[in-house]
């Protein structure tokens, strides 16, 4: 958004939660913003990168989240304000550094923004990194709406500076990717100057070296106590409802919006009190005592783990002599689902049960009519590779090479668009799928099991961005330990799944169109691995090369399959072929074909025409890559160069 930086104080703008966070960082006067692409966090750095020039800030897509936090921490040590942005999985990658960072403390305000994905709408998993705040004894903030997303980011940076330590700000998909109208505040004109003061005494917090020493543990706890004192009066913790409600609903984050709406839907505004917490670790005890005293029945509504619920219960137990015994409802009682994301309907169901109210969203007559007419009529719409995606071609060749090899070989995968190859769209080729770079690590392990009788060929897949993020150490491990496996490096020139951000292998960075590109092929060769390079659209050569590599027992090998992502600007701008199906040649359902293209290959641009009993190109969807013409067994799909 063009006015992210230029937007004036007091003006109203419709922004995504992530844009609000970015604006909040600018209003706090940050100088540095780093991150690694991860849905739903990526827009924070994307938007800041767009205005970096006019705002005079430095933004970076770091090679991984650990390095991103280190780069942001350097800014903080140099007395600049900074944020590091990642999805929940990324916090785990940065965890080792977080553990040490909190011991050395920080100088300029530093906020770690974690955007999480309850219900794994755009992730393999749902995680909950709030525990990292408790684990590392740092403050945790959870914005409850879009205005707070901005305001709390700014306040979080101020808080960090006040206490001299890292602050964790946690958002979720339904905040980060949702949009709301907010009012902007002022952006400071002054730019801070960077200076790392380190000449002082060893434990001098302001001028000494920044050392993560165990003996500073107590300092960490003192800093946290300062934060708690500030939380007692924070405007981000609010109460709405009667002084003495029948039920107290405690919530945070996007769940506060669901809860408020659920209360309105049931019309129980004068029976249910809503305590929305924005500072959720540590919970300010006095505030909690005051609210817990209001009634005896307490419902906690949150995603994903019962973090808030457990912490409230601990406080309640401690305060029991003063506040009495409470009855708790939430995940443990089964009123709130223990997995998945929440929505207003789930909160309505919980409230309805606890308030003994039944609620029918629509008249029964409509519901029955709808069930009869439309329920289950819309066909399932599963995930698939985009039309023209090089991965579809790559996995076609990989799958076939494995079948031809015939020794029950398999491929280990990790995180990216190619993770979809656990599904039929990638011919169910990936047989393990875990974290970034883990496919290579697992493969390095499988390949050392020959002495125990393992004779299955081992492959691993990683993307170009993942290669830099995490796979290199695993590949080095494999080379050094002579692990006989083939790494298939799917180089589509970008971090595709998260929105096509750049990575070190490209001459583009967040700040430059002319950055030094790191040569992946050269890295692999320099490790001493056998390296082959193919265009995945050349199906025959790719498959033959793979079979040859699987027969080669000399240690770790790399096959780079290089072809640009279908969503890259270059490919979107051009259509190489005009495609069409020759209906007369199409064998279709009969013996000799059995609809190989539509039943198995599954590109969305190639549909089945039931009337003609033949395949047909959907010209709106097809991008003209031409690969389907190569898989048709009867040359019925024709490609004509444009």
């Amino acid at each position, binding site marked *: 958004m063009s006015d992210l930086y230029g937007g004036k104080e007091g003006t109203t703008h419709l922004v995504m939660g992530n844009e609000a966070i970015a604006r909040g960082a600018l209003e706090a006067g940050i100088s540095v913003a780093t991150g690694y692409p991860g849905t739903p966090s990526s827009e924070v750095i994307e938007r800041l990168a767009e205005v970096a020039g006019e705002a005079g800030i430095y933004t970076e897509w770091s090679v991984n989240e650990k390095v991103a936090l280190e780069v942001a921490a350097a800014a903080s040590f140099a007395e600049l304000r900074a944020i590091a942005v990642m999805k929940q999985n990324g916090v785990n990658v940065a965890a080792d550094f977080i553990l040490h960072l909190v011991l050395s403390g920080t100088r300029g305000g530093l906020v770690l923004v974690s955007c999480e994905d309850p219900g794994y709408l755009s992730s393999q998993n749902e995680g909950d990194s709030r525990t990292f705040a408790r684990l590392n004894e740092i403050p945790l903030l959870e914005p409850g709406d879009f205005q707070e997303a901005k305001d709390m980011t700014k306040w979080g940076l101020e808080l960090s500076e006040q206490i001299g330590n890292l602050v964790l700000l946690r958002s979720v998909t339904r905040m980060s990717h949702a949009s709301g109208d907010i009012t902007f505040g002022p952006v400071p004109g002054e730019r801070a100057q960077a200076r790392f003061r380190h000449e002082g005494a060893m434990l001098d917090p302001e001028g000494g070296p920044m050392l993560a020493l165990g003996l500073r543990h107590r300092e960490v706890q003192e800093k946290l106590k300062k934060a708690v004192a500030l939380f007692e009066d924070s405007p981000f913790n609010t109460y709405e409802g009667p002084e003495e409600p029948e039920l107290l609903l405690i919530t945070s984050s996007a769940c506060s919006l669901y809860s408020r709406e659920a209360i309105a839907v049931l019309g129980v505004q004068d029976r249910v009190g809503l305590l929305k917490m924005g500072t959720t670790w540590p919970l300010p005890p006095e505030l909690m005592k005051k609210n817990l005293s209001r009634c005896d029945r307490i419902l906690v509504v949150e995603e994903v783990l019962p973090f808030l619920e457990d912490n409230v219960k601990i406080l309640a137990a401690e305060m029991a002599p003063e506040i009495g015994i409470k009855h708790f409802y939430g995940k443990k009682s089964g009123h709130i689902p223990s997995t998945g994301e929440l929505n207003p309907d789930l909160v309505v169901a919980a409230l309805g049960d606890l308030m003994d109210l039944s609620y029918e969203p629509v008249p029964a007559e409509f519901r029955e009519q709808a069930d009869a007419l439309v329920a289950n009529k819309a066909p399932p719409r599963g995930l698939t590779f985009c039309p023209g995606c090089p991965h579809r071609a790559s996995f076609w060749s990989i799958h076939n090479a494995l*079948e031809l090899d015939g020794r029950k070989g398999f491929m280990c995968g990790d995180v990216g668009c190619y993770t979809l190859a656990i599904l039929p769209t990638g*011919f169910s080729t990936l047989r393990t799928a875990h974290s970034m770079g883990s496919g290579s690590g697992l493969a390095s392990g499988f390949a050392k099991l020959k002495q125990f009788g393992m004779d299955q060929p081992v492959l691993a897949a990683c993307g170009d961005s993942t290669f830099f993020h995490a796979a290199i150490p695993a590949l080095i491990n494999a080379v050094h330990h002579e692990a006989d496996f083939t790494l298939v490096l799917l180089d589509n020139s970008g971090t595709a799944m998260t929105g096509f951000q750049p990575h070190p292998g490209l001459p583009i960075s967040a700040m430059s169109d002319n950055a030094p590109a790191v040569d992946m092929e050269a890295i692999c060769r320099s490790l001493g691995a056998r390296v082959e390079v193919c265009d995945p659209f050349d199906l025959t050569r790719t498959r033959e090369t793979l079979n040859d590599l699987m027969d080669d027992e000399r240690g770790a090998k790399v096959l780079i399959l290089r072809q640009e992502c279908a969503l890259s600007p270059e490919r979107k701008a051009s259509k190489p072929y005009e495609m069409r199906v020759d209906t007369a040649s199409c064998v279709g359902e*009969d*013996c*000799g074909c*059995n609809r*190989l293209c539509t*039943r198995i290959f599954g590109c969305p641009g190639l549909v089945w025409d039931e009337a003609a009993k033949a395949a047909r190109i959907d010209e709106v969807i097809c991008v003209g890559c031409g690969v389907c013409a190569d898989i048709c067994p009867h040359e019925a799909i024709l490609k004509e160069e444009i």
Partner: protein
Amino acid sequence: MLWTGSFHSRDGTMNVFGSKELKEDVIDRGLCIGCGACIGICPYFETHKGKTAILFPCTLEQGRCFAYCPMVEVDLEALTQLWFGRSYDASPLGPYSAIRTAKAGPKANAGDFQSGGTVSALMDFALRRGTIDAAILTDKDGILPVPRLVTDPKDVYACAGSKYTSAPTLSELNRAIESGRRNLGLVVTPCQAMAVAQLKSNPLNESNFTDPVALVVGLFCTWSLNFRTFEPYLSGIVPIDSIKRIDIPPPPAEVLEIYTDDGKLEVPLAEVREKVADGCGYCPDMTAEFSDLSVGVFEGQTDLNTMIIRTDAGAELVAEAERDGYLILGDMPRENLDHLTGAAANKKKKALSRNREEGLLDATKDERPTFRLNDDIIEGLQGGGS
């Protein structure tokens, strides 16, 4: 080649299923010998280094893959009726009109023949005469046999020489048919000949079917080796690239000879027999009974072949080849004939008995047998003799 759908059985006994049953009955049971009959028809079956692979599942309930496969639902009775107009009696050598000795004549290329050069000479002649427009033979790439379609008579000789591991030669036949070729000649093993016999019988009852095969020349075969186990075994003895030729000399040698630049090595045949394809143990046919004529070694003389002539077409071709100087024929000595008959009988009895013992000849309502034979033949396997 579009087929129109439902199967009409000839006499109600030969059933056609699909690739799912083919996988269950043949591949999963380890009976596949890699003849190539299922390859080249569709994109789902492929071959790699001698092993047949199914790339993706096909959902059709009936397919040519199943129909052609010589290891399941082979109706020996129906096929014998179709080819020879008589019942299948499990005679050791199958139906024939004459058995002669044969070798390449003066008109055929002098060359590096494995034995008498009869097959190469005959295919050369058949191409020149126009009996066939193309020959489907087996060439090799190192020690891996590779199917090859030949239209120039001179190219026939490159494919001479015994191959000891099974070759998916029929894949080339299927590809040739798919591309519209007709009037084809084949040099095939007994299992492949059975597959071709099924193909020629139009098992899916296609309405516009024409028989694309004009000549089937069979090869005698006792067993064939599984490339996937044989190649690693060899590479443990010498580097594969250094092998010039492999030969199994006649008994009583009991060795396999490996010829490299550095000379000849011998390995015990007993070790080699461990690499025989499992499916071969279930095959009752040693002399390629479903052929126009079949050819094998002549015991005791390395430059001579034994030839069994079966059909009128086969007899006619052989007579003309002899007349035109491509073949030299002789009389088959009694002793050799007896040895041949005994060896063939042995293989047949062992194989059919094994099929019966493992329940593979059961043809009750829901079962799919390997071979369909008349009940009296099956019962005859219980006692001695064949």
